[in-house]
């Protein structure tokens, strides 16, 4: 597992207080991990902080699953 994926999963586990085993790449934040709309905003802000990148609103709207987040960060950071 790549470093980015591990760090993303760690943030999700910490923020949503869910079990690590549930945080699979295809898990949806809202449908599978119980996030509400505030949680998704907080997650995006936590990703921005951890990876020192900016996630614009239109991109953030498309980050629905753990994999979406990992892909966005891989594409937008070195």
């Amino acid at each position, binding site marked *: 597992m790549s470093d980015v994926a591990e760090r993303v999963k760690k943030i999700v586990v910490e923020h949503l207080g869910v079990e690590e085993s549930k945080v699979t790449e295809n898990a949806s934040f809202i449908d599978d991990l119980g996030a*509400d709309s*505030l949680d998704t905003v*907080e997650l995006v*802000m936590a990703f921005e902080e951890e990876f020192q990148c900016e996630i614009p609103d239109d991109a953030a709207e498309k980050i629905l699953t753990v994999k979406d987040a990992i892909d966005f960060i891989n594409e937008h950071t070195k």
Partner: protein
Amino acid sequence: MFDLTGKTALVTGASGGIGGAIARALHDQGATVALSGTRREALEATAADLGGRAHVVPCDLSDPDAVAGLVEAAEAAAGTGLDILVNNAGLTRDGLAMRMKDADWETVLDVNLTAAFRLSRAALKGMMKRRWGRIISITSIVGVTGNPGQANYAASKAGLIGMSKSLAGEVAPRGITVNCVAPGFITSAMTDALSDDQKSRLLGAIPAGTMGSGADVAAAVVYLASAEAGYVTGQTLHVNGGMAMI
């Protein structure tokens, strides 16, 4: 009741009459306070007077870059996250609307409303993480009633009320409350400048028969900042001796 031990508060306009009273009251309840304003000396005098748990973080709220760094500066000075934000700084540039300059409109909106929004946004970041926070903005009776000669000021104060209600709805699930306190006529440098004739006319409109004090406003802020007021959000608490019952 209303114990604030272990909490950190940032008070803007702490160099002024009401802000100084608010800082003192929060400090009396045990909070650590960060005092902001443009006049460093006045802030330092208040901090020295309070003794420990008081920090000075000067900031010109009409300067967006300075506003952007204020919450961080307060947290650094206090050495903890910010639990309580009191948006108290405010200014007036009165004049009849037909003669009001754009600059007078803009300055009042920038300092009274836009800076309060930016500070609230910055403060919310840490409050969301810590699942606790209080944002209290000092609005005014005229934000609800309007006042000829104060279109800019009344708009900024009404804006604070609308902003607070909206923020309150957004962050309520995180243990954060957002409220306003709306003073009526409070003795201050501003009201000291009124003539005796003006004063007696004003007092005639106040059922309580006296002007309020900074301490009256501060007590309302202490209540809203407390754990006990955790179920009160999106509200405006009027402190006006019955001048307007709204």
